[in-house]
């Protein structure tokens, strides 16, 4: 496997507080990789070290084959960054932000205008491109920042909480935009987030981070599968009879009633729906409705860290 980012026991300490504790991260080329964790988990610190903003206390990291400490300049040329907090100048226009960025990153004069036009097209600022940023909406500002990170055609785009503080509709737009980007350009996206839904929808692979450490890393699907906790919700005409009979089935891990519904905890629920319906029929029980629910990343997070992501610490 070809990894564009690799860290080896990377650690950042502040006095006696360890923000990032020997993290080993491997990000496959051209993937969307998510670092998921609650506020204060060390996500931003980790990303800052990979962006050469912070120097690691110990351990090493390479980005696009360059060491983040020894070849900081080459790393910077290979990456685009969208910070968690806004990094725009109110009194410049969107186009000027892109022009300035292109100049700072040494985009050749010949292709500069073309690149800027391409990016403006992509982020769909329309006529707003030539207005001051202070007139932009939150979503436009974010799009501009993402677009700016792309002007110099980076190999890796870092997004630190890209949809923090945006309304749900804008958030969906940004998601759509990031997946479109990942498909159309040969770019790797490394993003941090504390939104489960975001990681679930966007990321090919997710690393769960808590208290400075990576607890688990895999695809969202595998992570959820690992939990072995699908829920089947079933509604039948003879509720008590069904529960009594179904209790004895070996694939049923847990069964209980909730109002007029029965909840059954199983593994790999998609293979069992058919069997459950047959089982009910054999016992002359009528199934009125049946529904399968996979665990979400929130459940995964709780099972690995013991706390809900939104609770924080």
């Amino acid at each position, binding site marked *: 496997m070809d990894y564009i980012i690799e860290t080896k026991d990377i650690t950042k300490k502040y006095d006696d507080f360890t923000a990032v504790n020997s993290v080993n991260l491997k990000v496959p080329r051209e993937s969307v990789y998510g670092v998921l964790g609650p506020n204060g988990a060390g996500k931003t610190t980790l990303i*800052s070290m990979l*962006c*050469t*903003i*912070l*120097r690691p206390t110990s351990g090493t990291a390479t980005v696009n084959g360059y060491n983040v400490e020894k070849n900081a*300049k080459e790393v*910077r*040329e290979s990456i685009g*960054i969208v*910070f968690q*907090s*806004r*990094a*725009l*100048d*109110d*009194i*410049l226009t969107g186009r*000027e932000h892109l022009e*300035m*960025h292109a*100049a*700072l*990153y*040494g985009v050749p004069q010949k292709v500069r205008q073309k690149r800027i036009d391409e990016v403006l097209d992509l982020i769909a600022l329309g006529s707003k491109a030539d207005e001051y940023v202070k007139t932009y909406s939150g979503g436009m500002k974010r799009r501009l920042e993402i677009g*700016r990170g792309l002007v110099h055609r980076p190999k890796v785009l870092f997004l630190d909480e890209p949809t923090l503080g945006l309304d749900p509709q804008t958030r969906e737009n940004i998601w759509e935009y990031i997946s479109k980007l990942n498909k159309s350009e040969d770019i790797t996206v490394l993003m941090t987030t504390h939104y489960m839904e975001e990681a679930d929808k966007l990321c090919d692979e997710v690393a769960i981070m808590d208290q400075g450490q990576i607890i688990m890393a895999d695809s969202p699907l595998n992570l959820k599968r690992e939990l072995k906790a699908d829920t089947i919700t079933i509604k039948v005409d003879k509720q008590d009879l069904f529960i009594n009979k179904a209790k004895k089935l070996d694939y049923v891990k847990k069964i209980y009633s909730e109002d007029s519904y029965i909840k059954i905890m199983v593994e790999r629920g998609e293979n069992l729906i058919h069997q459950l319906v047959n089982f009910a029929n054999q016992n002359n029980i009528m199934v009125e409705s049946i529904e399968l629910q996979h665990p979400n990343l929130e459940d995964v997070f709780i099972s690995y860290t013991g706390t809900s992501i939104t609770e924080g610490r």
Partner: protein
Amino acid sequence: MPELEGIYTIWLRETKRFIRYRSRILTSVVTPLLWLLIFGTGLGSAVRFGGNLPGGYQAFIYPGIIGQTILFTAIFSGVSVIIDRQYGFLKEILVAPITRPSIIFGKAIGISTAAVIQGIILLLLSFVVGVQMTPIIFLASFLLMIPISVGLAGVGLLIASFTDSMEGFNLIMSFVVLPMFLLSGALFPVTGLPTLLQGAVYLDPLTYGVDALRQIILGYGAIPLYISVTVILVFAAVMVFISALAFNKREQELM
């Protein structure tokens, strides 16, 4: 030449900011005019100065007020890096693949441009205080204002690199800007002062700037011109160098 282009880009942004904040340009011209017209006329007619001041008190403080305008603009623009930092824009510049000295140099000449534009406006208004302006005086003053403002911008940038928030603004005003202004001899002749005060006056880099401007514009001063000019040039170079060092060293804290 990626570094040169980086310097140019940072200069361009600084200059755009200055031109787009029109209210700033207006106040930067009105404030010195108030000093010249009200303070200059008032004190000039109330007090007789020991030495003779050719052209009167208003003319005497005219180069001083130009110096003051450059001082305020340069230091506050330098300190405004703190605001850039709070708004996060500094990060965008600091993570770019260009060297810290280029960033500082670009900033310093950008700030200098803003300060010199204000100085030029004041030079053009010399008739208000009855001072004659010739092309040579104009050109020489213009050239002199460049290193003065670059050096003072360096002071502002240095302060910014060690300050976390604009809360320290009043401290900077009381401990840096006002003393530099008052000790510079902008408002009174620096010869014949009590020894302690005299020493402080000669430690103030702005003293040399104001005195050199006064010699060029009015034809008299307290320090030989070549000494003043040398001090100003050295001051500018040293301040840019030190603030570049400070940014290099404090890079992590600044982001």
